[in-house]
């Protein structure tokens, strides 16, 4: 092995100043960067190329990967704008670009007055958890690496509009947003309903599927309450399916069967419906 010689830290000053200028995004151009002490003055204007491509590249990459569901709902431009604002405040430090915006939900939630920001914060958090699920080992699919987490200890949290990830259950392996619709958020009800009805499913076949909960099932979700454990929530859904009025039960069962068939077809996931 080559004997390592400690390099004089001064030899890296150009790196520190170039990266600091690039990530500061303080509006100064290449010629105004102060980097003429290292870089040939005739080339300073070309630094703007690095700077203009830097934010664009990382935000688009994240919009297409980690935040793809947000991008599908709100468009690339909006998501990139939010990410750019985030990186201007907190320059990225993570080796892996896909982890660079993990702090975004917390930053968005600091704006307590803005309800849309709170909702978007939750969406971003779902996206980050979804990405962790997407890239996690099979068959373990929980970001917490629990294969058989006790569902009685996982609770619905109304204030975050999120259900913590759960592992397998007879009905489905699912992570879902199950809060009731809140028109006070100022968003169209249908948008929120479809957002809140998103089920993120991870199957043992490694393929991933995002689907909307059918309208006829949303009524069941609305009966779920805060402090209810996920195990209880699923039991409530099972119970309502079995014990609702016959006509409503038939419609709900048909909707559920169709929904599960869709999941099964895409995921090759074997789901056992709440049986007789």
């Amino acid at each position, binding site marked *: 092995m080559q004997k390592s010689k400690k*390099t004089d830290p001064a030899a890296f000053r150009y790196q*520190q100043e170039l990266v*600091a200028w*690039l*990530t500061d995004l303080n509006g100064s151009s290449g010629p105004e960067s102060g980097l003429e002490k290292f870089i040939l003055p005739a080339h300073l204007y070309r630094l703007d190329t690095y700077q203009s491509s830097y934010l664009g590249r990382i935000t688009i990459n994240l919009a297409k990967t980690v935040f793809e569901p947000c991008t599908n709902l709100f468009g690339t431009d909006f998501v990139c704008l939010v990410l750019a604002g985030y990186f201007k405040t907190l320059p990225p430090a993570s080796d*892996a670009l896909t982890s660079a915006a993990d702090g975004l939900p917390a930053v968005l939630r600091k704006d307590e007055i803005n309800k849309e920001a709170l909702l978007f914060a939750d969406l971003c958090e779902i996206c980050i958890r979804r990405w962790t699920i997407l*890239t996690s080992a*099979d068959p373990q699919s929980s970001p917490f690496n629990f294969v058989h987490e006790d569902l009685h200890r996982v609770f619905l949290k109304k204030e975050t509009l999120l259900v913590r990830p759960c592992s397998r259950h007879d009905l489905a392996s699912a992570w879902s947003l199950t809060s009731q619709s809140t028109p006070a958020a100022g968003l169209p009800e249908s948008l929120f309903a479809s957002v809140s009805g998103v089920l993120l499913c991870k199957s043992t076949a*490694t393929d*991933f599927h995002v689907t909307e909960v059918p309208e006829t099932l949303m009524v069941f979700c609305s009966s779920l309450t805060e402090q209810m454990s996920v195990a209880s929530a699923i039991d409530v859904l099972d119970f309502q399916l079995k014990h609702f009025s016959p006509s409503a039960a038939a419609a709900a069962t048909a909707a559920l069967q169709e929904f599960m068939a869709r999941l099964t077809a895409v995921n090759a996931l074997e789901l056992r419906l709440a049986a007789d």
Partner: protein
Amino acid sequence: MHDNLWGLGLRPSHFSSYSALENVPPLEIMTDNLLHHRGGPALHHTLKIASRARGIFLHGIGLNIGGEGSLSPDYKNGLRELVNLFNPQVISDHLCFTQSGGRQSYELLPLMRTDAMIDHVVSKTDELQQFLGRQICLENVSAYVSYKDDAIPEGEFLNTIARRAGCGILLDVNNVFVSSRNFSLDPQAELERYDLSLVRQIHVAGHSIRDDFLFDTHDAPVCAEVWNLLAGVLSRNSGIPVILENDDDSIPLESLLEELARGKVACAKVQKN
């Protein structure tokens, strides 16, 4: 030119196209797209396609070999997992720095070409090769700025590092062209500085024109001048695998395969003459 020496960068947008392709060319996989993936569709599809490819090359952008300080243990571990998983013919990253002061640029920033940088890079390359138990290759990057204290031409800079560290060179012909033009140098002369006996893999790609300089965008067809330069390299050593890079996800796989085929023919013609 053997068919197992000409390949493409594997893009997720082409996963389904590769599934339908009977004859999968050699493929280059991006380390950073799969770093720390323990499962999931991206890894699953990459593994499936890689098992049918006529050769695998693993190429990264986040190693920061020229950056101050040590290599990231997290990055090294993730890289080693991917090396063990894919057993690539060549493992490579860029001769550059990407971060400093706890901040990531995710950009391939050129190194100041000094003896001190050579010592620093050799030391870190040596450390990584010991860690992996494998040789790695370092790629020349495109540059738009040069430093007042650059003391060594780029080809000789890379040659010296490769000889001292026992690593290989990934020669990006397009990057030589872009950097040469940007600094009013002769691309052919700059290319001839490289010791081809150290070159384990070649990249070829397109670039864009930005005002009065060339910009390495990796999203345009390879220009004729770059194909000619490549042909010149291959006429001196025809056994080096070539990977065509293109980061534009809107381009169908068929178009890239056609461009690769045209490039092979163009190079063969030049070599014949």
